[in-house]
């Protein structure tokens, strides 16, 4: 798979490139700003663009705006945003336009090399990857109370599920069996009154819709 990296910090750019190359990606271009990103995607048509939120010249949300343009103009290029801190509105903007092939992770997650590579791969093939912190912040926003009925364990499962992980991924993260996870998920869907869905991605959508991020 082919990737383009847009990140203004040289150290991190090199780090991300190394991780992706080690995971078998072909890094076609590394750029430092949004304009360079659009040009590189136009030229290389990669499977995924890994984009820093804060980039020159303004160091505010150039990356998010560029990502929205990319999703509109090049629907076959997935976008993974990297951010210093979580601003759930960025995630919401990104997910509102299109819920497949997008991701939003904190920069420090790159250090968990294998997990980061998994997330990039998942997004590149049309899945989602949301940072657990993003999901946690979305939960803070919720003012209706079905969430209060969840047990702490079920909340954890919900956060991981909203982040885009499969059953096996959640099981591995929580060190329990897949069947235990399946049971938790069933319970969550019952308590939150969500429609059942088998495919991982549709399930993520249901949760995101519940959190008020993705539109129906």
């Amino acid at each position, binding site marked *: 798979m082919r990737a383009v990296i847009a990140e203004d910090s040289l150290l*991190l750019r090199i780090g991300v490139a190394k991780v992706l190359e080690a995971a078998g990606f072909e890094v076609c271009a590394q750029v430092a700003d949004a304009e360079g990103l659009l040009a590189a995607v136009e030229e290389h048509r990669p499977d995924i663009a890994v984009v820093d939120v804060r980039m020159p010249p303004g160091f505010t949300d150039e990356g998010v705006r560029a990502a929205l343009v990319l999703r509109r103009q090049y629907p076959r290029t997935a976008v993974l945003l990297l951010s210093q801190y979580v*601003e759930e*509105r960025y995630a919401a903007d990104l997910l509102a336009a299109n819920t497949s092939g997008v991701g939003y992770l904190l920069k*420090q997650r790159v*250090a968990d*090399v294998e997990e980061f590579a998994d997330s990039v791969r998942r997004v590149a093939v049309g899945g989602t990857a949301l940072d657990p912190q993003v999901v946690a912040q979305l939960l803070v926003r919720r003012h209706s109370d079905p969430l209060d009925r969840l047990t702490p364990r079920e909340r954890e499962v919900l956060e991981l599920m909203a982040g885009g992980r499969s059953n096996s991924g959640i099981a591995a993260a929580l060190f329990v069996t897949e069947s235990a996870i399946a049971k938790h998920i069933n319970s969550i869907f019952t308590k939150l009154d969500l429609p059942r869905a088998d495919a991982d991605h549709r399930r993520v959508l249901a949760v995101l819709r519940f959190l008020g991020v993705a539109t129906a």
Partner: protein
Amino acid sequence: MQLTTRLQRVLVRPFRGAGHRTAFVAAGLPLHLAVVPLWLWLLGTMAALVPAVAALPVLLTLVVTPLLTAGQRRRYRAFVGHDLPRPAAPGPGRHWTSAVRRLTTGAWWRQVCYHAVAGPLLAVLDLAVLAVWAAAAVAASIYVWIWALPPQWQVADLGYTPQAAYLTAGGLALLFLGPRLTGALARLESRAAEVLLGPSRTEKLARRVADLAESRAGVLDAADAERRRIERDLHDGAQQRLVSLAVNLGLARATLADLPADARQVIDEAHREAKEAIAELNDLVRGLHPAVLEDRGLDAALSGVAARLPIPVRVAVDLPQRPSPTVEAVAYFVVSEALTNVVKHARATRAEVTVERIGETLRVVVADDGAGGADLAAADGGTGLAGLAKRVASVDGTFCCRSPAGGPTVLTVELPCAP
């Protein structure tokens, strides 16, 4: 050596600046005497029992007062070296309304009092001191006069008699006394001018309070800017480097599969520590002034704080526009410290944060369903609360913590913010 310094102290030092002070005193004389004709006129009309005409010198006094004050200020500046502090100016208005308003101020009547009463008294003292100087000069140099003046001009036939010697000695004594008298009078003059022409004590205090408030705001802003700068530096420097280090260690762990077990363990350890260092640095930056607060405001920053806590926290921020960075920083600090306290001490299962703008006040409420009993003065949990109260007081906010034993605890903070 010692004798010369002692002589210098006694003979020379008193004369240093004496000329200057005498000039100051002399310059005051015409200004002080200016109202004397008006006084005489007033007394004259009163003696002649023509009260209608008595109004004239009074009115004239009112007219010349600002001129005399201006003259006194110039004298003060020229001889003391700095401006006499001005009393607060009356509010703006049409020419005559502001003139009428000025007539009702205490500052105005103190001025009138200075020129009409203190002035003539000071003039008498001025004259006395100038007379001492003149007498001292003449008496001390009596022999010169006896020698220089033609004999028929001499009023009394002193000649080279013992009286002349007494006169010389007396003159020298007066000469010795002159600088001290002049100094005392100059001090009295400055003091009178400062008290009667300068701002009153209330005005001085009010001005001081305003100055202090301004400088405190400046210090707070500077401290905030400094926190932001440190955050930027850490973000651009140490944080990036640590992430890069952790990435490299993670790559080493993932790709160097054929290393011996103990080497792998070392890499694992290093990788974990690098990630912990990143987390710790992030916590530190959050405590300083997180970038998200500067970029996105309270709403985004507080939901970030809330999401990191082990208990569910609801955050509702309702602000039509962003308050000043200083107020934002204080509100952020209050909420994040209060929530930390909730987790540490309150044994709560949930908490709620509301931030809203009511008129010109930013109201922050942090409530939990914990055990209560939080005490501002308590040694343990109290230090956190006392610190919060101080930070709130630094921007003239109010701080109220209701925490009955058994809970719940409600912390209400109100911060003034200009519209």
